[in-house]
């Protein structure tokens, strides 16, 4: 038997393997460190409350829940969620049908009005509604004058929250239900009509069934939105779960019984509802959808309402909705250019327009109780000249842009792994979807309590809720909260990559990195940028999370806007807060609108459209330069071009 001496094998790690191992470690760290452990800590808080003697009483907070008034918050939130499901679906479905399915005059304008909530939402929208419908608001004053018996305080509490959120939460209907309706094969409608079905029967028996999956998802999402409502109940005064959690989180044991444990219990109750609803949703989604079997889909043709009475009624209803949507937007824009006096009186002064709510500073002179006049220097300041507002804008801009980008990067890397490793990819996918199961408030509350410590080894014993560290904590929370949405959207774009493209690149000798950067990334980039922009839009004006963290080191833009409602004009301070609030809303609408245009308008162009646009610009440039050149040269050039 012949033996040959073999050189000892050199232990060599392939760079790809090393990157994969590091990636897996990162995701494990992210999931356990910033999703599971902080939330489990919140759960344990419920059962580790101590009585006056310092003994642990695991059931104290549960007993408190049933004995005290905590149940009220849960019931109120459930009531709001249930009512919202009805009102949002009625308004949302009718808006979509009126603009997409029925032939209503001026549908394009109506659609624009109904879609304003895409750029005008959250705190900005609530403060706008307050501006109009508050006890001394313009619309309320008009209504009280018209109906003297009417309660001027009608816009507060449950009614106000329901009204505001009904119109604020139809954005998803305008996006997703609209797409679903536009995806209907018109041949099916024609077939039903041909078989003798009347228009309403066609709508009920042919169109609606195809919309049921979308409607179901929208209903669940609306219910969750209602349960987790934050800015509207806070600003309009309604006792629901989320504002109570934030209040308890900031309370101390000296003021009331175990506030943190109660906040934790409410968060867990909220999480339980969310988990049940989302489980129902995914079980329903797994059942499958109605898919069009048509190979040649026909574009939907708008249906005329043949009954004249119904037609008039539909038009009136459509335009009333339009007025409800548009009035706050128009009023806010108009009043943002008005003086503080006009804004305070809520009366339009057409002879006096100003840019002071946006730019510049002015002194404020006022009469004291002693009859003397005082001047508060620089008390009137524009949006971009007010330190607090500008600070909020800068901070929100920075934190949002970082978190939006981080969420996208993490998800792109994860999706690349998920599509390559089907089995282990599932675990990664579920771990990134985990924050979807939890209400935002639970995640933020958990962060606030868990990372408010020097003993967390995996963040190198840094207290992340201490001074400027809170900014890092907010970025983390923002990122984690946006992961599920980013994953769902970006994963869908990965499906668009033809597997043969990867094979082709491989066959032409490209490395996995080159294949990813040169072939796959450019394909998914428009979707990634869209998700980035939507993440940024959401975070830039978000209120719930930063309010939960409630730190002077992390005062977000939305919190600044919210604070503008509170101390306006008190002792001559903050005198044009309402004007700045209007200006802020206009600013937010411009930023959001611009981003949506960049993403869906310019960013969605494919290469062919970009080349066409470039050629058009070249031609225009040539035409302009031709104006300055002798005609013979131009003629020669034109000949060349043709």
């Amino acid at each position, binding site marked *: 038997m012949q033996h040959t001496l073999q050189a000892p094998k050199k232990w060599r790690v392939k760079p790809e393997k090393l990157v994969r191992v590091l990636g897996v470690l990162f995701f494990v760290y992210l999931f356990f460190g910033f999703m599971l452990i902080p939330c489990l800590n919140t759960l344990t808080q419920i059962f580790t409350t101590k009585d006056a003697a310092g003994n642990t009483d695991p059931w104290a907070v549960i007993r408190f829940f049933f004995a005290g008034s905590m149940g009220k918050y849960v019931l109120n939130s459930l009531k709001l969620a249930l009512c919202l499901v009805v009102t949002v679906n009625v308004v949302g479905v009718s808006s979509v049908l009126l603009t997409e399915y029925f032939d209503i005059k001026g549908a394009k304008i109506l659609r624009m009005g109904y879609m304003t909530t895409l750029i005008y939402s959250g705190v900005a929208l609530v403060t706008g509604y307050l501006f109009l419908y508050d006890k001394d608001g313009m619309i309320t004053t008009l209504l009280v004058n018209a109906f003297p018996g009417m309660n001027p305080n009608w816009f507060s509490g449950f009614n106000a929250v329901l009204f505001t959120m009904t119109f604020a939460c139809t954005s998803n209907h305008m996006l997703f239900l609209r797409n679903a309706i536009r995806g209907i094969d018109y041949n099916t409608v024609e077939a039903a009509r041909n078989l003798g079905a009347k228009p309403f029967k066609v709508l009920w028996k042919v169109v609606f069934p195809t919309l049921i999956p979308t409607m179901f998802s929208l209903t669940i999402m609306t219910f969750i939105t209602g349960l987790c409502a934050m800015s509207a109940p806070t600003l309009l005064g309604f006792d629901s779960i989320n504002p109570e959690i934030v209040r308890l989180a900031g309370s101390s044991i000296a003021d009331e019984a175990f506030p943190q444990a109660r906040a934790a219990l409410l968060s867990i109750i909220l999480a339980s509802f969310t988990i049940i609803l989302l489980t129902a949703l995914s079980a329903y989604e797994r059942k499958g959808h109605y898919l069009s079997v048509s190979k040649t889909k026909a574009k939907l043709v708008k249906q005329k309402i043949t009954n004249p009475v119904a037609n008039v009624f539909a038009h009136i209803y459509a335009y009333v909705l339009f007025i409800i949507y548009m009035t706050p937007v128009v009023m806010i824009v108009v009043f943002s250019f008005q003086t503080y006096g006009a804004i305070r009186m809520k009366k339009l002064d057409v002879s006096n327009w100003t840019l002071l709510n946006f730019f510049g500073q002015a002194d404020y002179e006022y009469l004291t109780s002693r009859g003397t006049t005082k001047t508060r220097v620089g008390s009137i300041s524009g949006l971009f000249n007010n330190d607090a507002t500008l600070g909020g804008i800068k901070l929100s801009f920075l934190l949002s842009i970082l978190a939006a980008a981080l969420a996208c990067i993490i998800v792109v890397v994860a999706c690349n792994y998920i599509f390559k490793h089907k089995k282990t990819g599932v675990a990664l996918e579920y771990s990134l979807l985990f924050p979807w199961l939890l209400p935002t408030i639970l995640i933020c509350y958990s962060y606030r309590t868990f990372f408010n410590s020097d003993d967390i080894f995996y963040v190198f014993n840094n207290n992340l809720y201490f001074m400027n560290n809170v900014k890092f904590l907010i970025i983390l929370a923002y990122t984690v909260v946006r992961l599920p949405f980013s994953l769902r959207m970006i994963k869908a774009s990965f499906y668009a990559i033809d597997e043969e*493209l990867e*094979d082709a690149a491989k*066959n032409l000798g490209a490395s996995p990195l080159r294949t990813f950067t040169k*072939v796959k990334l450019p394909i998914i980039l428009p979707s990634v940028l869209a998700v980035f922009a939507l993440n940024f839009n959401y975070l830039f004006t978000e209120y719930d999370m930063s309010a939960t963290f409630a730190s002077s080191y992390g005062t977000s833009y939305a919190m600044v806007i919210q604070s503008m409602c509170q101390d306006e004009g008190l002792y001559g301070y903050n005198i044009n807060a309402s004007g700045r609030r209007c200006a802020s809303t206009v600013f937010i609408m411009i930023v959001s609108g611009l981003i949506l245009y960049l993403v869906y308008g310019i960013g969605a162009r494919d*290469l*062919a459209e*970009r*080349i066409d646009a470039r050629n058009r610009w070249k031609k225009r440039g040539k035409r302009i330069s031709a104006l300055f050149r002798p005609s013979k040269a131009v003629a020669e050039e034109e000949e060349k071009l043709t």
Partner: protein
Amino acid sequence: MIDLNHIVVKFGDFTALHDINVHVKEGEFFTFLGPSGCGKTTTLRTITGFIEPAEGTVFMKDRDITHVPIEERSIGIVFQSYALFPTMTVYDNIAFGLKVKKLKKTEIDQKVRLIAKKVDLTDEQLKKAVSQLSGGQQQRVAIARALVTEPAIICMDEPLSNLDAKLRVQLRNELKAMQKEFGITTIYVTHDQEEALTLSDRIAVFNKGCIEQIGTPNEVYNGSQTEFVCNFIGDINLLDTEISAELAKKNSAILATNHNYIRLERVQLNVPPTDQVVVLDGVVESREYYGLYIKYYINVGHQTIKAIEKNDGINLHEPGDKLKVGIDAAHIMAYPAEA
């Protein structure tokens, strides 16, 4: 040029390819033909390196490439979907492989323009996005991209299947001309028998992960070695036992117990009986008009016989017409009946 020796490919418990043996000669246009799921694309992907066989070897120019990475095999591929990179211009698509090889810019430019010229792509088209080209032009880009790196062979996976019928015929001819011009060994996958017959120097007919027959188009069509090949290539009549018995009386080589077939174009209409031809009385049931020829369905009592006749525009038979249907024993393709 390419040798597949005893290739076995398994996907879990499922064996996709059973003992595949193929020898493709240099410069040959070789086609893998078969129905969906028969293993032709799997064989192609084994050659290109996307699939590693469980057993067997792949040789290219006498070099064992069974375990050689895809990018080192020097095999160009034209994919079914063309797999053109949608975010790159036509020029960048063609130049991709050259850039990966880190060639100089001037060299890349020269090679791209040369190959573009050969496949009839203009400078203007090179600047366009691939989505701005027609299906036929896209196919040319895919071919140019595969050829520009000067591979030893080129593999094409149903590259005409996404095109409409007329363009398919036009590009089929162009493809053949291009292959002759470049003189490159080509392996072509298709389920379209007409495409295989018109394009190929030789054809391998696949069925259920095995090769049923390898031969020239004529050998495969007129000398189908198995009943599957005979049935798969072209339309054919399976004669019932009564006709087979009649034929057996005329020609002792024919067994009535066999499965006896005759191709449509070999069925003779209105011919007198001879010692080799069985003539049956038939009535035209229906006809299909193809322009160049007409296909008749003729009831001969116990079965319907299909026959085609050149469309001369004069001697057309109407449904209900009585005809004499002649079956020549010399044209029978016989296969033993399975137990």
